[in-house]
């Protein structure tokens, strides 16, 4: 049970890191995610069942997510459409595209075919499959996290970090803010699609409705993570997101498990998620209103 929650959380964390990039770093609330998550699932499923192979399939899933994010950013940049609307437009169009990718069906199973997940389980031999999977997902999500941290230490990554905070500064330094938005939203949705691709293999099917409401779930995970500790180091921030994602999955598990006693059904979980986000917003707001220790000169602490 615990292993299951952890694996779930680690797959989910890839998506949450994407949401973190747009909502927190870029300050570009991007709703493309609800569509690109299923895109990743659909692309990897069709790649595997179509014989393209697992790793090309995963790469393709990442790239299609990135392409979806690029479309959103370009709509926003070129047509001066608010970012929320640009995301909704792409998300809506993706729904049709995802069904096309799935060959006109709403879902496609990944049964009796080799997936990354089934291969890993085979590799584990006599080790219990949940343990093997958990170890694998720790390595997988951990590597992506480290790569992301590395990226945010490059000149480009640092500049992306300044974007959501102070776009004028980025412009003043001779960087095209539109390019940065394409990069950021693209990268974000690439991660989201990768997450969808992993989930499809884990649960054994892709579904066109897989991503409905997922952006709010990702946001909930990001916000839960932010309550855990404070830091201004990117490595810590991405770690927060992973912990937040696991925590979210655990909460939802208990919601499902024990909610039964108070008549909660699985369809109530979206309501719970929304309430969780609202509660987080309320808590974050009341924290912000509290006077913080004014640290002026000489204080050596990181906020």
């Amino acid at each position, binding site marked *: 049970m615990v292993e299951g929650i952890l694996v779930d959380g680690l797959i989910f964390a890839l998506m949450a890191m994407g949401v973190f990039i747009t909502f927190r770093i870029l300050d570009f609330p991007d709703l493309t995610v609800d569509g690109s998550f299923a895109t990743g699932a659909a692309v990897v499923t069709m790649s595997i069942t179509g014989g393209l192979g697992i790793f090309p399939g995963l790469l393709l899933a990442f790239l299609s997510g990135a392409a979806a994010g690029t479309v959103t950013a370009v709509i926003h940049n070129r047509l001066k459409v608010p970012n929320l609307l640009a995301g909704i437009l792409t998300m809506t169009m993706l729904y049709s595209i995802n069904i096309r990718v799935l060959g006109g069906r709403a879902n496609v199973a990944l049964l009796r075919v080799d997936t990354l997940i089934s291969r890993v389980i085979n590799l584990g031999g006599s080790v219990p499959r949940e343990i093997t999977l958990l170890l694998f997902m720790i390595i997988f999500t951990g590597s992506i996290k480290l790569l992301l941290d*590395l*990226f945010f*230490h*490059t*000149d*480009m990554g*640092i*500049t992306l*970090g*300044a974007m959501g*905070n*102070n776009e*004028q*500064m*980025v*412009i*003043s*330094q*001779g*960087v*095209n*803010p539109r*390019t940065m938005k394409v990069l950021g939203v693209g990268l974000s949705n690439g991660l989201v699609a990768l997450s969808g691709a992993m989930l499809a293999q884990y649960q054994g099917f892709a579904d066109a409705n897989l991503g409905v409401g997922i952006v709010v779930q990702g946001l909930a995970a990001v916000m839960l993570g932010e309550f855990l500790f404070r830091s*201004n180091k990117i490595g810590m921030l991405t770690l927060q997101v992973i912990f937040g994602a696991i925590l979210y999955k655990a909460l939802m598990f208990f919601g499902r498990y024990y909610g039964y006693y108070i008549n909660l059904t699985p369809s109530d979980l979206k309501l719970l998620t929304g309430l969780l986000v609202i509660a987080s917003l309320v808590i974050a707001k009341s924290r912000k209103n509290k006077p913080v220790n004014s*640290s*002026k*000169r*000489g*204080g*050596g*602490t*990181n*906020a």
Partner: protein
Amino acid sequence: MIKLENMTMVFNPGTVNENTAIRNLSMTVNKGDFITVIGSNGAGKTTLLNLISGSVFPTEGKIRIQEKDVSRTPEYQRASFIGRIFQDPTMGTAGKLSLEDNMNICYKKGFKGLKISLNAKRRKIFQQALEPLKMGLESRLKDNVGLLSGGQRQALTLLMTVLSHPELLLLDEHTAALDPRNAEIVLELTRQFISEYQLTAMMITHNMKHAIEMGNRLLMMDGGEIIFDVRGEEKQNLTVEKLVKKFHELRSKEFATDEDLLAR
């Protein structure tokens, strides 16, 4: 070096809110000029800098930087020539990033690649650059800029801008939001950097004394026009009284007091 030719800037043309902020303005900024700009509220000073930096495009007229017509060149491309500091100290730095990250973004202008250039050597350079500010910032490279005071932040912005060696430095009342003591410090740094690095600069101020004391050239603006342009010896001999008198001569406008006119 920078030439404005018959620039006109009309906001919201064809609507009830139509507003001509700059009226058929021509001027040349020569290399090495340090120009102070004064004028009452709404005279068009900020709009003039916006036109030069490219954050707005002129309705009519041309702007050339080193002979090249940049009238339609986006702001981020002109930024490699131009360093700009705003009145709001939060505009020049990213508060959620550390000092070193901020300085790294500003170290070299233009597109940022996938290189990791923030290393020990870079940090050393940053520390040495921060020392002359005498604000103790050299030991706070890892602190978020949001923790700094307004004065510290504006001094940092000034330093970072200067380190990127802009061809033209634009200062828009960059000390107006600071308390008098910090304003004096930042102003002194401005004076020091401009002469040390031999920068070409334009500085908007509402302080006539500063406008007279600093720089080699003074522009007075009103109603979107440059109504007075003095330099050299003539500028050296200016006093606040002479300047106010000049304004009345030129515009023969009546104001309640002279203080209302230019100083705020």
